[in-house]
């Protein structure tokens, strides 16, 4: 797997939200027709609906994946008091499939960058087994900790991650 984690390090994803990992899986995320690459800009209006997610690879292995989407720059990247803001958790995604095949623990909430330019991180974890009823739902979306969630559910290090930037669209056209 030759995908490097350098964009994640430079963008501060590894360090703020995730720990250093070696990518083991590849997955693609599409908002409509636009594919999400590390650090690309996506408008909040374009990301209001769930993205189309595809874990690449032949659907042979029976491994299940968990996807977590967080915003570490809430409400303001200079003062991330609510770091991290949880947007989406999907568990039990079978290998080689779409995110709709999984079970949505926390419903999708679109990006809402109030001030500044926010990063939105989608991290994929490999599950040991099927996530039973023992997974605790985090109460409230603010001050979420991806590391803690992974530790609680024995997910370990992520196997893949991608992030994109988003900022508030100006209400009026600036002259």
């Amino acid at each position, binding site marked *: 797997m030759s995908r490097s984690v350098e964009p994640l390090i430079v*963008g*501060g994803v590894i*360090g*703020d939200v995730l720990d250093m990992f070696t990518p083991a899986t590849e997955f693609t995320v599409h908002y409509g027709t636009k594919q999400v690459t590390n650090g690309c800009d996506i408008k909040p209006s374009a990301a209001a609906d769930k993205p189309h997610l595809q874990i690449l690879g032949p659907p042979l292995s029976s491994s299940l994946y968990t996807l977590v989407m967080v915003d570490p720059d809430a409400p*303001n*990247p200079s003062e991330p008091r609510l770091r991290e803001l949880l947007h989406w958790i999907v568990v039990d995604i079978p290998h080689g499939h779409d995110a709709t095949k999984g079970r949505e623990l926390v419903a999708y909430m679109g990006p809402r960058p109030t001030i*500044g*330019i926010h*990063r939105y991180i989608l991290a994929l974890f490999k599950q040991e087994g099927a996530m039973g009823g023992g997974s605790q739902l985090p109460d409230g979306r603010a001050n979420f900790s991806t590391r803690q969630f992974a530790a609680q559910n024995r997910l370990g290090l992520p196997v893949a991650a991608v992030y994109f930037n988003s*900022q508030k669209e100006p209400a009026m056209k600036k002259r």
Partner: protein
Amino acid sequence: MAMALAMTTDCASSRWSMASLKSALPPLASTASSIRYPCHRRRSSSKCPQLVRSFTGLSPVNPLHSLGSSVTQTLADLNSFEHNFTIIDNGFKVYAMRHGRRVPKLNRPPDQRRALLRCLTTQLLKYGRIKTTRARASAMRKYVDKMITLAKDGSLHKRRQALGFIYEKQIVHALFAEVQDRYGERNGGYTRIIRTLPRRGDNAPMAYIELV
């Protein structure tokens, strides 16, 4: 890039790399750190020293900075003779008058001067507080205020003008995204200069300049 990796992976505290792809201005209010304000003659040993609320960049303030200045202050406190003398002065440069001096030349030819000021404003907008010589700090105020004023306007033309001045484009984008919230009500005066102890090597008078 290797340096960027090394800097960002080795310690969690220094999150800024050489090429900053993160679009965020340094935070505004600091809760933990403060610089002890150099009180000159008025302070008696019974009053507690005033603490200036200062600013951290995303890298937390080196505790040695405040420790160093506070240590010298407390050492000076103990000796009552010491604190009658001004510790922070203008470096023995006696300015009688300033007639006709419009532009600070900073001992450099014009191209280098412009590059130095561009560098300094980029670093100030990146880190929130920097320590330089007093002449440089007072020379760069104008340019920092100019950049923030451009960001307040926010149009494409102003954005391109800012991109032509500031060396890192992510800083410009972060500035344009956040300045309305931060400096929307404030009219001018977006920086603050605090004088500190002279530099050891050449006794140059130093100062901290920070975004208000």
